[in-house]
């Protein structure tokens, strides 16, 4: 701000000095004219004698010219000029001008008197001569204060302008130096990373003034822009994830429809042909064959039934209402055993239960039941008859701090190593020779576990298989 004021003052002073100098030149010119007309008057008056005719109009014109110069001079002089002239004691020039106008008026009145005839020619000439001399003298007198004023301006104003300019330069370089230094200091401070201090604290601590405001504004802007970029990135990722999961769901659905229709149709087609065989065999009297094929038809129907049940529970897994209740696990396991005994002879197995809970398991009973039932039924189906031990399934349910752990372990035939990643897919059967399942069991389990936001893992070898499920506690 100061620098602006100083510069404006400097420019004003310079312009004013130039203006004053040009004024001084004008005063000189006026004076020169004054002197010229005075000389003209002198010549004209000197050439007058008693005999010659007096050209009054000519004389009047010259005197008017003389008079015009101080008038112009008074017009040119302004208040500041007047003030300075008074200050440096050259105001005599103004007085001279005023006196000069009066003298001119006097000369004019002489010419008027002479014209009227009220003034004698000889007296008129001598008086006019005296006037011309006065005009001449005024011209000479006027030169001194004008020169003095001019030289004052030259001597005083120009060095002042130079000094101010010089000061200005020093001041500007000092300021730019200060700015550079404070910027450099700020850069240095901010470059030096401090672990505990945040950037905004760092700025407010080490930087001051307008630079601080600038840095804070920049920081704010950058932060908001980075936030924007991050938000955009997140939105993009979310969009990609949604698209991906939608595509996956679509693929799964079309795969599901394909496999369902295939697996539904296969037993029906087989049965259709088998019944024709049975008729042929009965007609041919080959009743043993007919009985065998009827058994096949029965097996196919059982398979179909299981598939339909599987599909139903799979859709149920999606539509089951999320109602949580306190689950009596012993009762649930009793029911499962009851149902499974209808499908297979359970006296060949041992089933162990280890339930270690401080509080009753609160969760969705339908889902927990289906998880347990599918895993237990798998364990029983894929028993290993080649092992000397009695087939067993061991169910361990324990309470952890924030979750429940369900382990279902068996000593069955295990799942082939190279197909572990397919385990939870739909319509996957790994033991076609033994399987009579729909290939949906583990897919159903996985779906329920996902709905319960739990995790499932598997360890399997030819020694047996262990599924471990972790389900977070429901916040009541």
């Amino acid at each position: 701000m100061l620098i602006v004021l100083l510069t404006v003052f400097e420019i004003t002073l310079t312009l004013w000095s130039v203006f004053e100098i040009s004024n001084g030149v004008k005063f000189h010119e006026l004076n020169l004219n004054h002197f010229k007309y005075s000389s003209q008057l002198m010549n004209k008056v000197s050439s007058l004698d008693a005999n010659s005719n007096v050209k009054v109009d000519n004389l009047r014109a010259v005197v008017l010219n003389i008079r015009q110069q101080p008038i112009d001079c008074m017009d040119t002089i302004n208040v500041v000029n007047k003030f300075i002239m008074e200050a440096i004691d050259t105001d005599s020039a103004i007085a001279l001008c005023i006196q000069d106008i009066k003298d001119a008026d006097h000369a004019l009145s002489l010419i008027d008197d002479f014209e009227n005839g009220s003034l004698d020619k000889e007296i008129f000439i001598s008086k006019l001569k005296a006037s011309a001399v006065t005009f001449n003298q005024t011209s000479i007198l006027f030169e001194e204060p004008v020169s003095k004023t001019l030289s004052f301006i030259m001597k005083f104003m120009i060095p002042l302008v130079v000094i101010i300019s010089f000061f200005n330069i020093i001041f500007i370089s000092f300021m730019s130096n200060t700015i550079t230094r404070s910027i450099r200091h700020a850069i240095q401070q901010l470059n030096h990373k401090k672990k505990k201090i945040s950037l905004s604290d760092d700025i407010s601590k080490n930087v001051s003034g307008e630079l601080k405001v600038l840095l804070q504004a920049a920081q704010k802007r950058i932060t908001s822009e980075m936030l924007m970029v991050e938000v955009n990135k997140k939105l993009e990722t979310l969009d990609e994830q949604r698209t991906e999961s939608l595509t996956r769901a679509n693929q799964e659905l079309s795969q599901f429809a394909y496999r369902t229709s295939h697996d539904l149709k296969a037993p029906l087609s087989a049965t259709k042909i088998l019944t024709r065989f049975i008729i042929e065999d009965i007609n041919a009297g080959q009743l043993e064959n007919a009985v065998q094929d009827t058994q096949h038809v029965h097996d196919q129907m059982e398979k179909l039934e299981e598939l339909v049940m599987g599909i139903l529970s799979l859709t149920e897994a999606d539509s089951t209402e999320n109602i949580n209740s306190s689950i009596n696990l012993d009762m649930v396991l009793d029911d499962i055993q009851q149902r499974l005994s209808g499908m297979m002879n359970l006296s060949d197995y041992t089933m162990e239960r280890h339930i270690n809970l401080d509080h009753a398991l609160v969760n969705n009973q339908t889902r927990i039941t289906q998880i347990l039932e599918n895993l237990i039924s798998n364990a029983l189906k894929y028993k290993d008859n080649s092992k000397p031990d009695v087939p067993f399934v061991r169910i361990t349910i324990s309470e952890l701090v924030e979750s429940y752990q369900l382990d279902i372990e068996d000593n069955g035939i295990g799942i082939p190593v190279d197909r572990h990643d397919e385990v939870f897919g739909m319509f996957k059967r790994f033991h076609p020779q033994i399987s009579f399942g729909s290939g949906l069991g583990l897919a159903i389990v996985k779906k329920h576990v996902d709905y319960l936001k739990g995790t499932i893992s598997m360890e399997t070898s030819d020694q047996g298989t262990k599924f471990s499920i972790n389900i977070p506690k429901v916040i009541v």
Partner: protein
Amino acid sequence: MKRVNVLIVDDNELDRYILRRQLTKIGVESIIEKDDGSTALEFLQDYDKNAMLYPDEFPPVVIFLDINMPKLNGFDFLKEFSTMRTRNELASVVVCMYSSSERLEDKEKAAKFDFVADFIVKGEVTEAFLANKITSLR
């Protein structure tokens, strides 16, 4: 009917039983069954051994091939077999797809192999139909 060696590759025991019975009925005598693409490939790979072991039934002339099989499915089998048949005396073997799939996509995929002669959909097969096919395949 002229003697035709048949190989059935299907993981479903019942489907194999049905096809065998139908083929037997139309007069096909030599039928070998494999329950997966992988075992069928091994069987064809051991050409010399199997030619000795089954002098009358090996090599097959027609392979009935299921698509959905757990270890090596029908299409995987076709891919492997297409490289295998260039070097052995298997070049004349034709494959007849035998699947419950009615998907056009599957049929087109199978038809890309020039040794795939036909696509039979399970459950739509009658003995007369089969006899017709076998004769035309020869």
